């Protein structure tokens, strides 16, 4: 066997373009540690993302990384996982990438229980485009596109993911990399669609006091609940005054890959009596 890999071994040669103090650094470090903890093999790990500051992450990690287009990370990751089930697939993106332009894909990846981990680095703002409101920007906040204050209720991602039947839902905070690491390890190990909302401050466009403000609202959950009680989970997510961190919901059910392999492919092969060649397929076109 090859030698154990260290966190630092998972680092790519690229230097992050993030602003000094950006929350995403904390996440990156926790991610490297989680990879060490799980001894992920770079060649069997795929890291996919959309577009945004946060979506630059895959470039900083040694793996099969892909930095695609804005909002489409989940379909892309689905394609990777469904065609190479032995690969550990992690999708990552921002709140804009995921909850705004990419919002249509989450429910479907979740309900199908695609066996990937989806991490949203939520900074409540569009960082890369320099400071416009995102669906999680708090009410009243003035951004470049909400000059008179942000209007419209903000979205509650955790609540949404529970409603979507995601089989693993957690929240963490990049200001607490140990907790991030723990959540990542659990999520990656979870068979099925696992989702982590990471509170990850944008110090440049949301102010440098974000870490402090979040820390004040943070409450840690412990796991001695029935994690699979959806209504309880919904209730926890509902309390928007607190920022509850930890695993909020968890349920084990067959992954889409399992279902495809065992139900679809097996049934199909039974129907065709093994692998049909082209001449066998041509039969159906005989008059």
């Amino acid at each position, binding site marked *: 066997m090859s030698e154990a890999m260290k966190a630092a071994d998972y680092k*790519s*040669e*690229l230097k992050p373009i993030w602003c000094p103090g950006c929350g995403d650094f904390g996440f990156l470090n926790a991610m490297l540690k989680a990879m060490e903890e799980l001894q992920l*093999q*770079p*060649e*069997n*790990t*795929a890291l*996919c993302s959309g577009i945004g500051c946060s979506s*630059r992450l*895959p*470039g900083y990690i*040694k*793996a*099969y*990384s*892909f*930095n*695609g*287009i804005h*909002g*489409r990370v*989940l*379909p*892309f*990751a*689905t*394609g*990777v*996982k*469904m*065609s*190479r089930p*032995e*690969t550990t697939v992690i999708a990552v993106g921002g709140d804009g990438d995921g909850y705004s332009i990419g919002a*249509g*894909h989450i*429910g*479907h990846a979740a309900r199908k229980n695609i066996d990937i981990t989806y991490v949203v680095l939520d900074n409540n703002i569009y960082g890369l485009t320099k400071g416009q409101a995102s669906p999680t920007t708090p009410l009243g906040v003035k951004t470049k596109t909400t000059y008179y204050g942000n209007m419209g209720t903000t979205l509650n991602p955790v609540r949404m993911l529970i409603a979507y039947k995601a089989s693993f839902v957690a929240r963490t905070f990049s200001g607490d990399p140990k907790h991030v690491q723990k959540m990542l390890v659990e999520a990656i190990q979870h068979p099925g669609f696992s989702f982590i909302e990471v509170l990850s401050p944008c110090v440049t466009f949301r102010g440098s006091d974000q870490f402090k403000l979040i820390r004040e609202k943070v409450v840690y959950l412990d796991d001695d609940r029935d994690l699979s009680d959806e209504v309880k989970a919904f209730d926890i997510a509902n309390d928007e005054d607190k920022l509850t961190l930890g695993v909020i919901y968890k349920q084990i059910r067959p992954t889409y890959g399992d279902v*495809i392999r065992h139900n*679809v*492919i097996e*049934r*199909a*092969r039974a*129907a*065709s009596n093994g*692998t*049909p060649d*082209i*001449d066998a*397929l*041509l039969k159906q*076109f*005989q*008059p």
Partner: protein
Amino acid sequence: MLNNKNIVIGIAGSGGDGVISAGEILVNAASSEGLFVFMLKSFGAQIRGGESSVRVRISDLPVQTQGDRIDILVVLSWSNFMRFKAEMQLEERLVIVSDSDDPMPDDEVPLTETQREFWYKVPFGKLAEEHTGSRLAKNIVMLGAITELFSLPKEALQKSIKKTFRNKGDEVIASNFKAIRAGEDFVKEQIVKIDPLRLDYEPRPPRLVMQGNEAIALGAIYAGLDFYAGYPITPSTEIMEWIARYLPQKEGVSLQMEDELASINAVLGASFAGKKAMTATSGPGISLMNEGIGLASMAELPAVIVNVQRGGPSTGLPTKTEQADLMQAIWGSHGDSPRVVIAPCDVEDCFDCTVLAFYISEKYQLPVIILSDQFIGHRKESINPESIGGGASGFRKVYRRDTPSEEDLKDYRRYKITENGVSPMSYPGIKGGEYLGSGIEHNEKGDPRGDVATHAKMTEKRWKKLDHFKEEFQFERFYGPQDAKLGVIAWGSTKGAVKEAVNKANAMGMSVSAMIPQLILPFLVEPFKEFIRNKNRVIIPEMSYVGQFRRYLRGFVRFGRYGVKVIPFTKAGGAPFMVEEILNKIIEEWKDMEARR
């Protein structure tokens, strides 16, 4: 003109009349006798229970089109026939077969006196009820009647019925046999045949019957498809439906995604993971995929994207054909975004083009768009089994993507600049081949880079691929004498009408030749130059009101320089070209040329 070697039958009725299934049974019967067959279906706006019609051409000789005019009009219900009258071009010497109990609403139906001359009435419904206990089988009674009337293949009809109802049990088959016999017997006993039409043919080995969409699905599987992701849309859905059924038999994965954005991105994910992947869609779906196709260009991900064109713009005419997505296929994504565009010209060519598309896509690591259309996708043609199966004549090469060598992996550069622009591509599982793929501009390693020099170098690299592969194959088809002074250039499904028209024109003593490119992008200018060199005029028929193909050709071919006059011949879509339309244009231009000599 009635012709016993080549018969076009039109059947119209309400949705419940079983018009479509009658057509299909007929097509199968004819094909199992080795006859050449071409069938089109048409539906009203109603989802179910509306009107429908089929047009079946049966011929002892190869056919290219649906046939301009109907020789035999079979009417199950006149009121439904009326909805199609504009689509059903009738021969002046016509044979009509209609239901005795469905009186024709005299003043509305546009039939001349001559057309009414040969007119047989058969009580389809009543006979069905009498012999099978239900009016449902009236379409089968009708088949029995016309088989007897026009000497259509009788045993084959029974075979075809047997096959069609094989899952419904012996009783149903027996009952349908009764229906056939009822129709036959009625004709034998009650009808005095006065028309001269009797199908005259040599039985040959059976031919296959296939839709264009099925041929694409089959071609994909032949080429080694591993992964399909798509979203239903008329008129492409059959590709997905077929693949969803048969791909899993080969352990491949077929996914229905939530939309076309998801479909193309899932395909690219699978391709990134080293798999052969495809999606198929139509107009609106392609408009949504443009961003993803651009990503495939930039990240150099192989992918096959099928567009079965329909009438546009926007939702347009979902069940009708048009050739107006041509320019979009070429230029639809933002930026200089290299891709390959291939257009099949008939059902068999759908198979070939798909095999070719995978070959190019995998070898050159870029998106390949197959531009089919509703006219090809939904029609049924009879096909020589040899031309599709194992030892076929068309393009049959299958390519497995170049992966990095040991040497490459020492300092792996995913986007390494090479002589032909193609770099070895790794995928998850290959140790040392890890890299960052991206849609952002990047250097050879894949690191994001925004400088002018890198962009210039990498843009060139991506486009260079197109220069190289063009020498590999022959992508054009030519008909007629090359030294003709009058030419026709067309693409895609217009081939059929052009080929028939050109053949007719030459038979009539004119000298005309035609060129139909299979490869649309990259543009290979040499064969065009060669073709037009000695021409005086070139007609460009296409089903695009604004003449997209002509605009595109003009962008590359300097007709003016060779003194060639371009004759635009455009129309909005909806119905395929008739041979006559093209032929008349040819005659017109020919006469004008002669007059000016």
